[in-house]
């Protein structure tokens, strides 16, 4: 039996730009940044894209026992996605959850460290373990949606949720599940974790107390880029076979027609163009498309000095002479880097770009780095009336690369 084609029939986000995917996309098209300064008590200025989340919409206070913020965001985004998909009418045993999460419940862990070690008689809340375990978000989604099939968590750093979506698509294509809820969540904007990222020398620099500079601090592919800013949030897709989606007359946002995985296997944190190129080629091959058939790439684009030129080289390796025809933007400039949830959020943005045939800008790039020569989407965003296919790239610490390729339904 040939593998089934996989359709995206539901979208849900709890994102720095809000919880309405269409409104979020419109805000990105306008180039609105969600990055703000925070934690003024830290020695070095920090900025991040956080969420004004009202957990009482999803949980009673009693239900919140042992449920970290990262799981709360996951439950909300997955619930939006399922509602958006309409009447799924799925046997619970044929419903799976495939969730990506890089760290788990950072808020619970930080509270435990502070509470447990600040004083000699410090105590750690008893539900710290179930709150911070990285598979809690997917399990919380499963309980909420009564998903009794495979419920898995993929913790592959910045590729986590792209890997989760690809694995979900594979399960749908092979008929292992009828419907998959796939995406990811990350919420680690707490002082200890921000300090750890600062120590890693990967975060964008800006003058202390300057909110405007914080909002525009992330400059993917720009000559003056200095790194990324953290973001929190969750995004989920509902995946099912195209045949099933047609049969129940569901709206089909896009087809997930290819995905590619590879590992650099060269260095834990330094990316590798040939490794990334292998994932890009694999996605194209699965979809049966040529590079010139793909009009848009939502880049990994972390705006680090090292990472951006390597991603450019990877795209050039695969697209060759067709590279000029590929429009590229990294929307991390506006929503921050959601790490384990980045692949899912950027997948949503990519397929909305396909749906609207509008490309979100590569913001804050006044002058492109000559080492990053790409056909970047301009600061105002662009229309792409002929856009038929798009890719979303996620390249992780650890060297694991994941590429999702969407086609118009």
């Amino acid at each position: 039996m040939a593998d089934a084609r996989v359709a995206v029939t539901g979208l849900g986000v709890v994102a720095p730009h809000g919880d309405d995917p269409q409104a979020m996309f419109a805000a990105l098209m306008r180039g609105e940044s969600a990055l703000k300064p925070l934690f003024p008590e830290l020695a070095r200025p920090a900025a991040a894209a956080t969420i004004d989340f009202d957990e009482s919409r999803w949980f009673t206070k009693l239900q919140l026992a042992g449920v970290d913020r990262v799981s709360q965001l996951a439950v909300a985004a997955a619930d939006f996605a399922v509602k958006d998909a309409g009447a799924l009418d799925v046997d619970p045993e044929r419903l799976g959850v495939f969730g990506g999460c890089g760290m788990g419940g950072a808020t619970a862990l930080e509270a435990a460290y502070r509470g447990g070690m600040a004083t000699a008689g410090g105590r750690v809340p008893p539900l710290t373990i179930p709150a911070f375990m990285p598979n809690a978000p997917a399990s919380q989604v499963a309980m909420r949606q009564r998903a009794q099939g495979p419920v898995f968590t993929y913790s592959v750093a910045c590729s986590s949720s792209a890997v989760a979506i690809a694995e979900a698509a594979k399960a749908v294509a092979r008929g292992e599940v009828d419907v998959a809820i796939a995406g990811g969540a990350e919420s680690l904007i707490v002082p200890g974790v921000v300090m750890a990222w600062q120590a890693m020398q990967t975060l964008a620099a800006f003058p202390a107390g300057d909110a405007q500079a914080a909002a525009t601090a992330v400059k993917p592919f720009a000559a003056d880029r200095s790194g990324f800013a953290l973001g929190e949030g969750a995004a989920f897709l509902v995946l099912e076979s195209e045949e099933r989606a047609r049969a129940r007359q569901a709206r089909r946002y896009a087809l997930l027609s290819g995905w590619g995985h590879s590992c650099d296997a060269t260095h834990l944190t330094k990316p590798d163009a040939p490794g990334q190129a292998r994932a890009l080629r694999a996605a194209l091959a699965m979809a049966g498309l040529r590079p010139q058939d793909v009009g848009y790439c939502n880049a990994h684009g972390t705006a680090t000095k090292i990472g951006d030129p390597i991603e450019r080289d990877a795209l050039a390796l695969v697209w060759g002479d067709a590279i000029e025809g590929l429009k590229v933007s990294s929307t991390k400039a506006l929503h921050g880097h959601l790490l384990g949830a980045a692949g899912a959020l950027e997948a949503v943005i990519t397929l909305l770009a396909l749906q609207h045939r509008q490309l979100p800008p590569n913001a804050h790039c006044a002058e492109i780095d000559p080492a990053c020569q790409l056909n970047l989407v301009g600061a105002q965003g662009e229309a792409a009336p002929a856009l038929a296919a798009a890719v979303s790239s996620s390249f992780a610490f650890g060297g694991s690369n994941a590429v999702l390729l969407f086609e118009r339904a």
Partner: protein
Amino acid sequence: MSSLKELQDLIQEKYGIDPATLDPNESMRDKGFDSLAIVEFLFEIEDRFKISMPDPDPSIETLAGLAAVVDRVRAEAAASAEQQQQPAA
């Protein structure tokens, strides 16, 4: 002395549950206190009342049962403190 009123106040404060809706003799589990919520609530009780609750006690099924355990622990703590204050013979 009964700790019931204090526990009801704590439940109201922490979970927003009106004491009138939680019959002290009904199962707390039936009111949404699953095993995880109970564990967290016991931790909160220890923090607030500065006591050390016994390990999971099967008698803690109802709020009245929980209040009885808290009463006993407090009484034992008070007796122990009194004993320590008495001068050695």
